């Protein structure tokens, strides 16, 4: 079973990746979705369910890695709601 340290580490890694989206809307959505997914599954106690959720997170991390790379390769002008200075 994934321990809380591993889960927390995954959460942190996912958010770090989400911040790397160059596209404002995808970045904001990923941040919100990751946060809400972890919050909604906070009460999970069944080890099998925790592992399933953890593995899904690992898959999402790989996906985010690929997609943020693509997003950084094809960039567009910033939106009118986006500050021009670097985010991080």
């Amino acid at each position, binding site marked *: 079973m*994934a321990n809380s340290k*591993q889960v927390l580490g995954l959460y942190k890694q996912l958010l770090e990746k989400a911040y790397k*989206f160059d596209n*404002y*809307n*995808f970045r*904001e*959505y990923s941040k919100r*979705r990751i946060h*809400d997914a972890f919050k909604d599954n906070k009460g999970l106690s069944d080890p099998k369910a925790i*592992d399933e959720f*953890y*593995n899904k997170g*690992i*898959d999402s*991390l*790989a*996906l985010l*890695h*690929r*997609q943020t790379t*693509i*997003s*950084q*390769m*094809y*960039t*567009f*002008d*910033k*939106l*009118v*709601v*986006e*500050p*021009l*200075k670097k985010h991080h």
Partner: protein
Amino acid sequence: MYRRLVAFSRKPLRKSTVGASSVRPFSQTIIETSNPVTGELHITTNFTNGTQPPKGSTISLKSAKRDATQFGTRPIYLDVQATTPTDPRVLDKMMEFYTGLYGNPHSSTHSYGWETDREVEKAREYIADVINADPKEIIFTSGATESNNMVIKGVPRFYKNTKKHIITTQTEHKCVLDSARHMQDEGFEVTYLPVDSHGLINLDDLKNAIRKDTALVSIMAVNNEIGVIQPIKEIGEICRKNKIFFHTDAAQAFGKIPIDVNEMKIDLLSISSHKIYGPKGIGAVYVRRRPRVRLEPLINGGGQERGLRSGTLAPPLVAGFGEAARLIKQEMEYDQKYIDRLSNKLKSGLLAIPSTQLNGSEDPNSQYPGCVNVSFAYIEGESLLMALKDIALSSGSACTSASLEPSYVLHALGADDALAHSSIRFGIGRFTTEQEVDYVIQAINERVEFLRKMSPLWEMVQEGIDLNSIEWSGH
């Protein structure tokens, strides 16, 4: 053991050293469009603000609320009824098919064909799952327009010896209305049902319009301009009782409102991929097998898709569409809760402006919250759109946005020309942020006030003159 990611270490890009050789480094080959620091490809779009305030005016249209040099220039996207951005998860699925899985899904002699065929069937399953259909009942087409054409032309043509009548509504999408008109030329009779001021049809009108030789009833589930949801279940029951095929155009409804083809007794249903964060260029039509619906295909050939739509499938698009359908089902509750919240915020923010009116139904059960259509009296919708260069909006469907004609959908609701001209549609989707909605509310508030200050009509209304009492002359 847990799966580990091997491909995670990121090697820094090796910079080629520029020597005396004539070979240019990569970063110089696209010098006009690339960022000299990072070498990133950069596509620039210049949006110049053409709208200028009158001389002596203190209000400026240049920026909505803050220093423009601190912020980007690309407009906020608020037109998800026209099309949606492709979800990165969908693109991730599609990438496999553009890199390795290139087999023809209809090639049954080798594994290249089998592997793509397996993925195509998986996608079909995901799409069928959203509407509780059997995967065999899903036929892939090029989009909802083709699906609508196929149904509206195909079903009556198949039954043309005994049936000569089609029923549809006045507020349908152009592709349904145009196909219906085409069928009139072929000798069929078409009844266009009127709608009430909220955009809903009257079920008694439908019952009265049904004849012995009615072949097909086609009524859209969610309207693309005002977001009103028709009573699909009741319509389905009426049609089944009269043994008439019922088609619904669910391009705007698929995955956004709960649809069950068996419970709602839908016989045919059109779906579009790019309205659910999938790729453009693909759609599907659901064709019921029991009781069997028969139709004449538009495209003949190799007999793919049960012989109803020949031609090789596009596995990248099909798989992307399937993934989009899987996601929209998985995320439906989460997305709708979020869209609901933003929609309420936007509505209350916009309707706080005096002399505004919400088009569509007030009943939450018959109104899709992601589509907010508001009329701003005493302003021309197109001029407001011109003043809102920093927000991507539309005054109606994308197909008619090139013309200045007022929307026929709003006309059908009984709106007068002035109201139809002054309405704007706001679309909220999965990727809309709260920050964007806040910006839009403030920008609209400021621009509406600005344009009304210029409007002589608004001045008259403020002075208490009834506009209807004026006798206009000179034109």
